[in-house]
């Protein structure tokens, strides 16, 4: 596997997009706070989302052999999913950075920019999936590609935002903090459910080999059974962390449980993505 740039790019972008969607979902409840408090609570997540998208952008550049020609990549929108994805990713990054920048200037969060970021981001994940789905690589041309990508966004996004929001929110409004942790837990469970649907379909689809030197995906992944098993175990542990936090927060469970969950889930999703890129190696 030598696609570390793409692994970092997809994980960062999907986490940032999932985070934007979560911030939008939480926005209504956060608007109960006064605007200054709301800005104070939301500024770190906004900066982290913008930062993640910029890290993703930088990682994607390291994948290119001739990054000086990067602007050419949006010249073939008519038929190339990669062209479309690059344009939409660029739009998401602009909106994410714009939302963070504007929030700092105006000292309040612009919900319309958040909404635009969420919509553009969700479409961006579809474009990312379509890039791989439309190749001839055995295993990528499966619905699992889309469910894996959306699942990552809905697992990492909620946990990321909760880890960033709750430490600031807990002192001001503990009830709201607990509600957020619960919501994040349920949405992350939904993210895992989405991934499981893809895995189930993947398992019953006869893989095709459409490349002359291609390898059947089942053969390509034969040596990665332990990796896949460990990934799921770690993922369950991460979800257990956040689930425990959601029911036991008022028992003074330290917030680093959320950080632990985030770290564990990033690692699990990273392993999942590693196995994904093994198919195309």
């Amino acid at each position: 596997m030598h696609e570390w740039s793409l692994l970092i790019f997809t994980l960062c972008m999907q986490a940032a997009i999932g985070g934007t969607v979560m911030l939008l979902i939480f926005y209504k409840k956060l608007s109960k706070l006064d605007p200054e408090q709301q800005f104070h609570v939301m500024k770190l997540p906004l900066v982290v989302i913008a930062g993640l998208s910029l890290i993703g952008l930088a990682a994607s550049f390291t994948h290119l052999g001739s990054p000086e020609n990067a602007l050419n990549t949006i010249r073939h929108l008519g038929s190339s999913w990669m062209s479309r994805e690059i344009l939409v990713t660029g739009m998401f990054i602009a909106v994410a950075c714009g939302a963070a920048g504007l929030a700092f200037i105006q000292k309040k969060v612009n919900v319309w920019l958040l909404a635009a970021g969420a919509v553009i981001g969700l479409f961006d994940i579809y474009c990312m999936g379509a890039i791989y789905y439309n190749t001839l690589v055995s295993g990528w041309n499966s619905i699992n590609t889309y469910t894996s990508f959306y699942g990552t966004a809905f697992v990492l996004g909620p946990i990321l935002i909760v880890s960033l929001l709750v430490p600031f929110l807990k002192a001001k409004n503990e009830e709201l903090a607990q509600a957020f942790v619960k919501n994040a837990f349920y949405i992350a469970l939904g993210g895992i459910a989405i991934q499981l649907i893809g895995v189930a379909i993947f398992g019953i689809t006869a893989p095709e080999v459409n490349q002359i030197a291609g390898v059947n995906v089942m053969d390509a992944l034969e040596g990665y059974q332990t990796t896949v098993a460990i990934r799921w175990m770690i993922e369950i542990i991460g979800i257990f962390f956040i689930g425990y936090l959601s029911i036991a927060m008022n028992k003074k469970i330290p917030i680093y449980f959320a950080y632990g969950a985030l770290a564990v889930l990033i690692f699990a999703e990273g392993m999942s993505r590693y196995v994904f890129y093994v198919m195309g190696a």
Partner: protein
Amino acid sequence: MAQLGFYINNDYCTGCKACVVACKDKNDNEVGVNFRRVYEHSEGDYVERDHAVIQNIQTFFTSISCNHCENPKCVEGCPTGAMYKREEDGVVLVDHDKCVGCKYCVWNCPYGAPQYNEVLGKMTKCDFCIDLISAGENPACVGSCPMRAIEYGPIEELRAKYGNVSDIKGLPNSSITKPNLVITAHRNAK
């Protein structure tokens, strides 16, 4: 000028790889970059019968480069438009002034034609030796084959002469990109 294509006499190919070496030499390619490749396809096994070990091994070789397809997926997927199909003869080329080196075409080609050049940071591929052809010479692979197993020309002429087979064992289904390729299949490749 009509669409150009290759004819491969799979039955004659001995797997000597003279075509690979000639192509590599002509294009001055780095180690690992091969515009034309020869694939060995083997099946069968040794079986023990009474006191004898009998084999039913079947092997044949297929020489493949870019097939300058009718529906090139590399062109369709290329985000920059660097990969394009030349109008006059249908040869698929890479414009290095546009290429960003994203390697997406590698995942889109059924025949392994796009070959990434790490030194250039660009995608490279068979250009049908258009410089040699315009000078009235054969492409390097065609000229070098000691078995005369590779020919080139307008694809309609090749099809009229040798038939329409472009699907043999070991090759991806031709319906994916409609390659401009005609093959006389080895008896074990049918």
